[in-house]
Each structure stands twice: as structure tokens, then as C-alpha cells.
């Protein structure tokens, strides 16, 4: 079953039972402590949670979630396109293409996304480039995620066996045709799980809309909390929405991974 333990004997079974009880108790104790702390400060009062059983609150948050989705989809589409170009650039046999692509990936990997957001927010307007709010979030996220996607695509392309592209060249396809018709379709399948899990990271990044004041989910939560004063309740609900969406995406990534592992 696992490399760390065998089928338990009578003594091990007793120990496992003890650990089960202890673990459950510890988890319950932590939960109880949290609930006590909430209760002692009046955060469990029904009227503080009741608003989140009403439609207008949810409509507002779901509008935020929709904006999150829009920003995430735009960022994903743009950064995947840019990432693919960068990956092909890094694998090119012309040095003047290879070097800048590699430099882009290596530099962006070590710059915080928030710094890029600040650059777009405060530096670009000084040079006469004042983007709409939506693009103030999407552009920096695209810049940073493109590097991540480039590495994923590059790994995918390199994982396709040499013989495939050699065969393509041998039947008289050009290098571009070989890449487009033979290598990329196979690479795309292999990197699908990584792309989905990178998309979870990307969706998490859109919470930087909080800084940009673009009305995505977290920023909507802040606006709502400022308005109704229900800080904890609002942000807990926001966190649960993120958790539900991202957990489904992560599950999709795992399913895809299992499926491609089964095929291989």
C-alpha cells in the first residue's frame, strides 16, 4: 500500500486507533477554539451572517466572480500565446531569437507580480500610457504568467521524442511544418494538466485586482465589507468562493493527469 508501513498487526492496529482518536480530538479542539473565539467576540451572531443568505449580496459577489473570470480568461489567452512564442523562441536555433526569449523568462521569473502591477499602475501613466482598469490588471499578470507558460510549453516540446521531428523532416516537411503538425499537437496533450494547474495560480493572481481596484471578487469583497462592516463574514465567504472554484480546477488537473498517465 505504501512504502512506509506494512499491513498492521494487532499492536499496530491499537496504535493506529489511538492516533485516530488523538488526531480527531486535536482537530475538534482546534475547531472548538476557533468557534469559541468567534463567539466570544460576537462574530457568530445570526444578524452578522444572515445577509449572506440573501440574493443581493450574492449577486454582488457573483458579479465580482464574473469579473475575476473575465480577467483570468483574458490573461490566460494572452499569456499562453506569448508563452508559446517564448517557448519556440527559446528552442530556436537562431541565437538572436533564443537569447532574448531566455532572458525574458529568467528575468520575469524573479520579479514579483505586485511590482509589475505597480509599474503599470504608477510608471506607465507617467510616460503617457494610462490603460483602462481591466488592462491594468491583465497586462502585468500576462507579463508574469507568460514566463511560466513558456517553461511549461518548452518542457512539453522537449518531452516529445526526437524521432518524431526527425521523421517529420525525413518525409520532407519543413522545420515549421514539423513543429506545427507533428511536435506541437503531441506536446499540447502532455502539458494539458500543467496548464490547468498553472491556471489555478493565474486565477489566484487576479486577486491583485484588490490593489488595482478593479472590481474582481476580492475587491468586491472589500467594497462590500466597507459598506456593511461585516469584515470577517465577507472575507470568509469570498475565501470559500475562491476555494470552491480553484478546488474544482485542481481536481480537473488531477483527472487529466491520471488520464494521460493511463494512456501512456
Amino acid at each position: 500500500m505504501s512504502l512506509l508501513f506494512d499491513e498492521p498487526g494487532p499492536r499496530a492496529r491499537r496504535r493506529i486507533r489511538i492516533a485516530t482518536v488523538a488526531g480527531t480530538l486535536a482537530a475538534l479542539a482546534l475547531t472548538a477554539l476557533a468557534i469559541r473565539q468567534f463567539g466570544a467576540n460576537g462574530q457568530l451572531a445570526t444578524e452578522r451572517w444572515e445577509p449572506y443568505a440573501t440574493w443581493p449580496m450574492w449577486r454582488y459577489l457573483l458579479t465580482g466572480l464574473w469579473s475575476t473570470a473575465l480577467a483570468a480568461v483574458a490573461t490566460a489567452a494572452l499569456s499562453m500565446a506569448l508563452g508559446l512564442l517564448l517557448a519556440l523562441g527559446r528552442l530556436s536555433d537562431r541565437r538572436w531569437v533564443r537569447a532574448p526569449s531566455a532572458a525574458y523568462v529568467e528575468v520575469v521569473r524573479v520579479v514579483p507580480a505586485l511590482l509589475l502591477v505597480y509599474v503599470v499602475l504608477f510608471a506607465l501613466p507617467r510616460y503617457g500610457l494610462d490603460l483602462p482598469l481591466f488592462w491594468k490588471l491583465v497586462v502585468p499578470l500576462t507579463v508574469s504568467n507568460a514566463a511560466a507558460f513558456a517553461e511549461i510549453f518548452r518542457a512539453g516540446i522537449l518531452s516529445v521524442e526526437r524521432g518524431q521531428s526527425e521523421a517529420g523532416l525525413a518525409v520532407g516537411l519543413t522545420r515549421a511544418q514539423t513543429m506545427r503538425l507533428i511536435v506541437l499537437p503531441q506536446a499540447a496533450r502532455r502539458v494539458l494538466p500543467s496548464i490547468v494547474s498553472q491556471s489555478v495560480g493565474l486565477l489566484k493572481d487576479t486577486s491583485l485586482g484588490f490593489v488595482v481596484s478593479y472590481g474582481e471578487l476580492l475587491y468586491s469583497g472589500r467594497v462590500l465589507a466597507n459598506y456593511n462592516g461585516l469584515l470577517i463574514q465577507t472575507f470568509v465567504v469570498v475565501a470559500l468562493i475562491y476555494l470552491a472554484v480553484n478546488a474544482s480546477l485542481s481536481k480537473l488537473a488531477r483527472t487529466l493527469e491520471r488520464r494521460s498517465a493511463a494512456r501512456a
Partner: protein
Amino acid sequence: MSALLDHLPELWQGLLVTLQLTVASFAGAAVAGTVITALRVSPVAVLRLLGTAYVETFQNLPLLVLLVLAFFGLPEIGIKAEPLTTAIVVIALYEAAYVAEALRSGVNAVARGQGEAARALGLTFGQSLRHVILPQALRTVVQPLGNIFIATTMNTALAGAVSVVELTTAANRVNLVEAQPIPIFVGAGLAYALIAACAGFVTGRLERRLVMVR
């Protein structure tokens, strides 16, 4: 350029806070991540469930949401702490999920015979984990852990969004005063690149020293 030099003390202070946040939260994440890995490979189903739930929760929540929740929410339930401390704890808990995931893949990469041999010698679960499995698992995940360290450095910038003045925020404040974005932001970017380069250098050295030739 003078904009950068005039404000060197503020930027230096910001860099120090970034380093503090990075080192302290990575150390915390390493410890918590190891404990969670131990839970996830233990023979007790409840503990495995708790470990998996932890990793799933923290990997699927944006760090900024956790920071906002901690900064605005904890005082509401009577837990007050220094902003820096709160940020360190939150980032440590968040990165612990990633450390745990990396370590678990390392544990899975340890050859089956190693665990069997440890048990055959009569080592308990804890002993075989501590003396046999984890030391070997750690060697295979030096590179992933280095990447997590770099990601932690990048993520500490988010603490700036909730009132901790670290390098990114310090740079932004200097820029708001001086209105010279290019030297200031490039300078801050270089500082981050330097931290990442150091981390890369150290992990490279560690990997060469720890690698096992089979």
C-alpha cells in the same frame, strides 16, 4: 539615478523587511511542511485526511485573500499581533502547503526497498521516516525547494498590500515622492533578482554536494 541614491535608507529598510519576511516564513514553512508530509504518509487515515485537507485548502486560496482575512479578520476576533508577525505566519502557512507537496513527491521517489529495509531492521514509522526516508527525500527535492524559496521571496511583496512596508512598497512610496519610476522600479527588481540568484547558487551547490550516485 539620484532619486535612487537619495532614498537608499528607505529602500534598504524595505529590503531588510523583505529578507526578514522571506527567511522567517520559509523556515516556518519548512517545519510545518515537514510535519504535514509526515501526516500525509502516516498509516492513520484521519491524519492523512487532515494533511490532504490542509494542502488542498492552502494551495487553492490566493495568498492575498489569506493576508486580507488575517489582517482585517483576526483583530475582530480578539487576536492582535504585529503586522510583520502576522504576515510571516500567514506566508509560512501558505508556503507550507507547497513545501509539503514537494516533500511528498520526494518521499514517493525514494526507492521502495529503503522503507522495507528500515522496517525489517525494526525501525518504527517515525524512526524510518526520520533516519531513512526523509534524508533521501530531501536530496531529491533540493531544486523544487529552491524554487519555492524564490516564490516565497516574490510572494512577500503581497504583504505590502496589507501595510507591511517591504521592498516593493518602499519602492512604490519612493516613486510617489520622486516620480522617477524607471531607476526605482528597476533597482527594486534587481534586488529581487539578486536574492533569487543567491538562492539559485545555494541550491545548485547543495544539489551537487548532496546528489547520490547510484
